[in-house]
């Protein structure tokens, strides 16, 4: 097992639990008709975002996807602002102007969820280039799905990052489906990570339901990037509990598969492991469960009590200067 301090273990569990609570609640709120638009939920993939982010600081950057809530929470974005954003309220992370698919917090290094599949690859090369030009040791993580792996932008970005030796870690979250289309259909590669060879960068496939495995793989990839040795492609294989979007009937998934996913739940796996090894007590974990639930209760209350943006907000933030 990777060498993780007690504090790190607590942080990992806290973040995974908070993501799960946030997503389960978002699903319920959506079903109840409380959230405008649509949401893409991360439940089931917690070990990936959290295992990666355990290696970062606030000075590091990430680019995210349409399924971005988990990345936000793992990167330290406040859940009150996130929930208010899902409601389109003035107190949201983006003042209600972005919504679920565009939650961002640049101060935390979170450069935005993104509604365009594969758009984060080019963007991630940006802070990578910035760090290189300014000579800092900041690292950027580019999260993308198995669906995005088939976009030309990801090919262009991985090639560019490699020739320029940018401090970027490309993390393919392979949850098995591009919307409803299974990866074995849409990908010519056995593993997405195999493509790393073509870009002359290291590539690894890890179990994305095992936060320790993700942490360990990312640890080396992030260290390599910080040393200025260039990018790495990590593929984390996992699953999502919910559909592509809320309201997706999930008709493309078998009962067998659903049962298998449940038995591989990343949070249950973590609990079993840390309790078996007496690293954390069940009581401590239960306390975090209760705290996460309370935090999400409070976030919903905060969001519902918050006002909608003033109509004058419609016209602000298009430009920094209007001349």
């Amino acid at each position, binding site marked *: 097992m990777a060498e993780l301090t007690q504090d790190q273990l607590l942080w990992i569990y806290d973040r995974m639990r908070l993501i799960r609570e946030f997503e389960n609640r978002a699903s319920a709120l959506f079903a109840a008709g409380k959230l405008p638009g649509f949401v893409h939920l991360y439940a089931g993939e917690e070990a990936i975002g959290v295992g990666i982010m355990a290696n970062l600081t606030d000075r590091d*950057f990430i*680019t995210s996807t349409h399924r971005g809530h988990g990345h936000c929470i793992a990167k330290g974005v406040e859940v009150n602002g996130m929930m208010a954003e899902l409601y389109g309220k003035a107190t*949201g*992370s*983006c*003042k*209600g*102007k*972005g919504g679920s698919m*565009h939650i*961002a*917090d*640049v*101060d935390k290094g979170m*450069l*935005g969820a*993104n*509604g*365009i599949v594969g*758009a984060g*690859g*080019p*963007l*991630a*090369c*940006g*802070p*990578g*280039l*910035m760090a*290189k*030009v*300014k000579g800092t040791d900041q690292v*950027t993580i580019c999260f993308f799905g198995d669906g995005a792996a088939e976009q*030309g*932008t990801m090919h*262009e*970005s991985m*090639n*560019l990052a490699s*020739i*320029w030796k940018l401090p970027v870690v490309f993390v393919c979250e392979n949850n098995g489906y591009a919307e409803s289309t299974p990866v074995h259909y849409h990908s010519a590669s056995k593993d997405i990570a195999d493509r790393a060879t073509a870009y002359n960068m290291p590539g690894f496939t890890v179990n994305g339901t095992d936060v320790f495995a993700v942490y360990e793989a990312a640890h080396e990839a992030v260290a390599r990037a910080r040393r200025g040795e260039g990018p790495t492609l990590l593929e984390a294989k996992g699953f999502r509990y919910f559909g592509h979007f809320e309201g997706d009937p999930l008709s493309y998934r078998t009962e067998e598969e659903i049962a298998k996913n449940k038995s591989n739940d990343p949070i249950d796996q973590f609990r079993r492991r840390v309790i078996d090894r007496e690293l954390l007590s069940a009581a401590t974990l239960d306390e975090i469960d209760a705290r996460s639930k309370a935090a999400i209760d409070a976030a919903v209350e905060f969001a519902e009590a918050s006002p909608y943006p003033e109509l004058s907000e419609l016209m*602000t*933030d*298009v*430009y*920094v*200067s*209007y*001349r």
Partner: protein
Amino acid sequence: MTIRNITFREAINAGIRQEMRLDPTVILLGEDVAGGAATFVEEAGEEAWGGVLGVTKGLAREFGRTRVLDTPISESAFIGAAVGAASTGLRPVVELMFVGFLGVCLDQIYNQGGKLRYMFGGKAQVPLVVRTLIGAGFRAAAQHSQCIYSVFTHMPGLKTVVPSTPRNAKGLLAAAIRDNDPVIFFEHIALLDTDGPVEDDDFIIPLGKAEIVKPGKDVTIVAIGRMRHMAMQAAEQLAKDGIDVEVIDPLTLSPLDEDAILSSVKKTHRLVVVDEDTPYCSVAHDIVALAAQQAFGYLDAAPQTVTPPHVSVPFSPPLEDAYIPDAAKIIAAVKATTA
């Protein structure tokens, strides 16, 4: 203050050089902008390409290969990288070699660069300049000759600038680099070898302000980019016929200096817009709409537009020549408003 006669090409180079000297966060990237990744060229004391048309020549030598970066032919990746770098502390000047290549990277320009600030509730800024070549007249056919700045002007979050002389090219480009919003900067290929007086000293020309190229009292001609020169040719001949036109060059299309155009129309009561972009959903038609909506009572004649037809740029020389608006067409349009 030294004023020298330099070409439009040299003026663009001077604008970039000025800003790169003033601000170490300004970087330049694009296909061949340094020119040949092999640095032995510079070590031998020779100049690398500096872009396919030599516009950025010498910048790699002065600023080094960390700040002047050749890219692979991956417009999405390097323009997206420029957007990401702009939102995290650099001021990239990125070259999209020809505007016709927007088709392979538009997402990064408008869905990302143009929208980040708004989507993030004002918590990001994207101080980015995309320089790109436009314009017909070089027998370069349909994919290397269009203007299509109207497409970008249509998109909230982007600013669009079309310089027309060496002096305004340098000053506007410097202003665009200092601007904290994404600016698309359109360089007309037929202007690159034109010359004119430009100050050696540092200066900027503020965005969003039109230039009254020639004052006049009878008809307002709004002429964009290279069309400014066509309009001036027309003005000379019209003067002989006793028609005194006012020529306005908007310079910036977004934000458009509406006041300058409206004041002129209210004075002359007649409007002709000359634009090398294709006519549908165009800046030319927007300017006509502006006058119709906000100065209707002042107009003594229906506003006219002089644009290419709604077709792609043809290759065959006589066809291409017929495509481009010229002084004769402008004169006919002006006379239509005074008939």
